[in-house]
């Protein structure tokens, strides 16, 4: 999921022109789980804006529950059909979602002005109703076969691929005494699995061209193609 956190209300209000009529959009998937843009927060945001003198023409969190705002066809239908009257009056959309959701609103409304209501902070695992933690950096080239599934690109502050630096103390990373050293986590996990041998091979430098932006994925029932500066990479999903 894409973890998001609301921007401070003062910052949001500051970005809205007093003459602007605003429609507030939330996301019923990730931002809902983050309490940054579900139906409750979206409705509340409309009220908070009105209380601060912003002209709000309506609000919506395209459902059903679990539906991502970044699913373009659904978002377009909700904004252009279900809420057509209100969205037609809107000069801008305040979006309580990640950057993907914000772009979806641009596409769904044929290029309308948007204001981000959230900061998109990382892609994470919903560990519990109150905790979202980061285990993947979306680098485009997974190296976790050799680390028991724990990603050193994410769990190691220096993104080292061949083992820890010398900076850990009492099991903690040198950048933060609260944060475990990612490589010690990997070591302990492999030790438990009886696979310390996985640490021995040399890991080559990463192909950062696969981490170029923007990237694209074309998908079909039989094959998928990942497009980055590293080139087009097509994989068959069936054979």
């Amino acid at each position, binding site marked *: 999921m894409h973890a998001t956190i609301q921007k401070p209300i003062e910052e949001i209000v500051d970005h809205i022109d007093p003459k602007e009529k605003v429609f507030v959009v939330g996301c019923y998937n990730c931002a809902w789980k983050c309490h940054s843009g579900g139906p409750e927060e979206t409705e509340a945001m409309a009220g908070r804006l009105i209380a601060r003198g912003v002209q709000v023409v309506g609000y919506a969190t395209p459902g059903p529950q679990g539906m991502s705002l970044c699913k373009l066809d659904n978002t377009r239908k909700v904004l252009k059909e279900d809420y057509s009257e209100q969205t037609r009056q809107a000069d801008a959309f305040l979006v309580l979602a990640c950057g993907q959701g914000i772009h979806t609103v641009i596409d769904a409304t044929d290029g309308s002005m948007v204001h981000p209501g959230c900061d998109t902070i990382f892609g994470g695992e919903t560990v519990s109703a109150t905790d979202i933690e980061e285990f993947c950096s979306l680098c485009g080239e997974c190296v976790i076969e050799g680390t028991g599934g724990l990603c050193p690109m994410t769990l190691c*502050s*220096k993104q080292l691929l061949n*083992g820890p630096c*010398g900076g850990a103390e009492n099991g903690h990373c*040198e950048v933060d005494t609260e944060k475990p050293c990612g*490589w010690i986590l990997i070591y302990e996990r492999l030790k438990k699995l009886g696979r310390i041998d996985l640490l*021995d091979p040399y890991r080559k*430098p990463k192909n950062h061209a696969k981490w170029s932006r923007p990237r694209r994925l074309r998908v079909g029932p039989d094959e998928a193609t990942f497009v980055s500066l590293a080139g087009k990479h097509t994989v068959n999903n069936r054979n």
Partner: protein
Amino acid sequence: MKITRLFEQGVFVVTSEVGPIKGAVSRDKTIHPTCAREAMFLQHNVHAVNVTDNQSAVMRLGSLAASVLLKDKGIESVYQLTCRDRNRIALQSDLLTAYSLGIDNVLLLTGDHIQLGDHKEAKPVFDLDSVQLLHMAMGLRNGYDITGHPIENPPDMAYGAVVNPNFDPIELQLIKMRKKVDAGAEFFQTQAVYDEAVFDRFIDKAAVMGRPIQLGVVVLKSPQMGKYMNQNVSGIMVPQSWIDEIGSVDKADRKKKAAEMTGRLVRKLKDRVQGVHIMPLGWTDVVPDILAHAGIEVKRLAFAA
């Protein structure tokens, strides 16, 4: 001169260290930067002087400029190069530049994280790790850049690496050390050791890897510094006994005491290593005293470099 030649001749190799100044070298050649003045105390007392690379992620004069400055003054330097601030293009280019400017020794490191330094909002690079950097340096020596393109006049320098005996679990640090050996590391300098027990659990397993190891020691200047290092310097633990001992004498006598304490530790451990790397943190003038306490005579090669 490559310090690997000293190791090959069985010489106990003594190195020390200076940190480049936070500022530029004056155009007025009569004004010597602090790091050059510190290095002058070392000139005839050690084989080579490490020059740190924006140590602790604090922005300073480049380690290459300071390394060349020392060479010009007749002091052999060990140019430190970290992965923190450079991608693979810059790292290779800096290695080629170092050789072109006369550098013979390089220490290749990961580098402290930016969060430890004075530019916390900077983007950390870490395009390569220290093992990959060693591989790449060997590639350049063999005539190829990291992409496999041939290069003109390959650079031939001595390449060293770092290992931290304080690391827990030590097995994990030794796995990385083995990778550095396999990648081509020709000598090792250790992170600061204070505790003999820490050294004991490390040295035999490290020694079998067959590369010369220099024991790293950091001069403890005051009890405050010991406490500070335990709280703020990653990967080093100063035992309470050291903090108490340096605190047992007046400030005026601490240089003498620090030399005695450091020399005593080196004397105990020197027979199990191939050299010592003394990190005096500015107190370069105590290095001769440390070596005297340690019973180390800095031997030169029989023939000219």
